[in-house]
């Protein structure tokens, strides 16, 4: 937390080194979120590109209410939403969700079979965008309900409801399958 404040301070004082450090620190988080929300690796990379360039452009005037991480991830989520869900959906390719790269080499991956991953992927696509977004931001990006609510300008109750309905739906889809 302190490190982020320091990096931001350095950034606002014109340090390009701080910009590089922020990018290196959060690039994988941003990419993971963009992929999860867009279901498309190429689109996700472009979104991270646009978001981070935009962040760099406005760094001097930046006023953060939340943490730097929350700010960057919220920017990604907003940009995915604004870039048009239909467009993204049409680009959906279940195979592309396996962007995991050298997946088979990863211990976590081994713990979950490909079949199971495919079923969960499929189940997630059946949720409404709002429900999916909350679940991804909560589980993958580790944002709190409060942070998610603030980033979307809705109440915490709304976010919790979306989460609960999303989890219920996932359970009903996956029940017996996984």
């Amino acid at each position, binding site marked *: 937390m302190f490190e982020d404040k320091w990096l931001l301070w350095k950034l606002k004082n014109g340090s390009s080194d701080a910009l590089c450090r922020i990018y290196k620190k959060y690039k994988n988080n941003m990419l993971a979120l963009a992929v999860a929300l867009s279901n498309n690796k190429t689109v996700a*990379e472009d979104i*991270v590109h646009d978001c981070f360039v935009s962040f760099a452009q406005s760094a001097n005037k930046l006023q953060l209410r939340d943490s730097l991480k929350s700010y960057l991830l919220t920017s990604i989520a907003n940009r995915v939403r604004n870039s048009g869900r239909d467009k993204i959906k049409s680009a959906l390719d279940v195979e592309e969700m396996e962007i995991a790269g050298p997946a088979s080499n990863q211990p976590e991956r081994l713990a979950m079979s490909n079949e199971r991953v495919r079923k969960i992927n499929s189940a997630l696509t059946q949720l409404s965008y709002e429900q999916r977004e909350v679940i991804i931001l909560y589980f993958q990006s580790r944002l709190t309900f409060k942070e998610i609510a603030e980033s979307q300008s809705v109440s915490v109750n709304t976010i919790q409801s979306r989460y609960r309905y999303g989890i219920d739906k996932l359970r009903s889809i996956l029940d017996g399958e996984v």
Partner: protein
Amino acid sequence: MKAAENIEKLIKAFFKTKKSSAVMPIEKDKQILNDALTAFEKSKINTPAQLQPSVWRIIMKSRITKLTIAAALLIAAVVTITFIDKSASLAYAFEQTMTAVNGMRYFHFKQFVYQPDRCLGKEAWVEYGLTGKVKNVRFDVYDVCDNSNNKGKISQSVVWKEGKTECWKVGQALIFFEDADYTAKILFFASRYNPKGALEYMDSLEKEGKVKIQIEEPTASHDDILVTAIYKPNTYLLQRQMPAIKDVYHIDNVSRLVKAVEAFHLKPNSTELLAEWQYCDYNQPFAPELLDLNKEAPSDVNRIDMMAMDIGIEQGDLSDSAITVETASQFLDALVDKDYALAGKLVSEEMTEQQIRQKYENLHILKVISIGEPKMDQYMFWMVPVKVMIEKDGKTIEREFTLKSGKVLGHPSRRAVEAPELKCFEK
């Protein structure tokens, strides 16, 4: 799979898998960074308010403008006294920071010193007693670091408790001593990094005309107050020869607490960042364990009580320069005579006969040719140039080195060779 928590666990595991596998391709990585850096540089040009001298200052450089503005201000003062009073209360003064830290007993900060090839880091905790005197200090020295987080290893930890010092040279020894000079350095260190002490010191130097101070009020409410102090050469630190230095204090606009300080070396045509320090937190009591190195260091490590050691040479009536030459001479003679036990007694933190033998036996010093005139370095150690004859690959050759010597910890009247500097032999 019926319980909600089971599905949550499953989803969590699923995302963990996905997250751990998100990797940006190298080409895209470069592109994003390049584009972001370009955008960042452009934004600096387009938003000059924060990064360039304020318009106010530029205007005030003109003599005519100064007179005009002064007249205008006089009129404004008559017409709107209330307004002026209100504005004046917003202006920053050192007293505000001094008041903000007044009564605070705990300071925690990190310091980074930039050298041509690396960055040296230090993390420090200072506790004041109820009477306002320094009570406890701890600092950890990192061998390598960066200023976002200390990634290097701690090479040394020092705890000072009301005059008594414990020094844990990681992996080597835990040393205990009481030393008035060392205590003075610790107290200076603590006061130097106590914002109140630092500002008071700066203020006193300004009154003596040794430092120029500029205060830059922020242009926006969320920006920091910047206090720039330009020190004339040899005024930055007590007793040390220093070039002209510029300190920039970043002070929080709301709390008036110092957030960070940068120190620059002022060169004729450029400035170079020498060091920076950040205040991690204010008045947060730290754990008592932090002040117990005896507990922290492994039990099997060598513990040395310097007060019980019989090392170094008594200075007696000899001048600083003469005792330095004498110490170097006796140490080198001991190496020539292969009397490694004696050489070990002439090193500031005693080395055993075996340690000295391992380190210097292969140097094959045959004789001492000359010992030059000692000079004091900026850290108050005496450096003495020596020329010796050594045997290498069956030939005898001359080698020149510099030996460093200083007072023995806990024994201020004694002098010894500083062990770390013996590395110079390995050049």
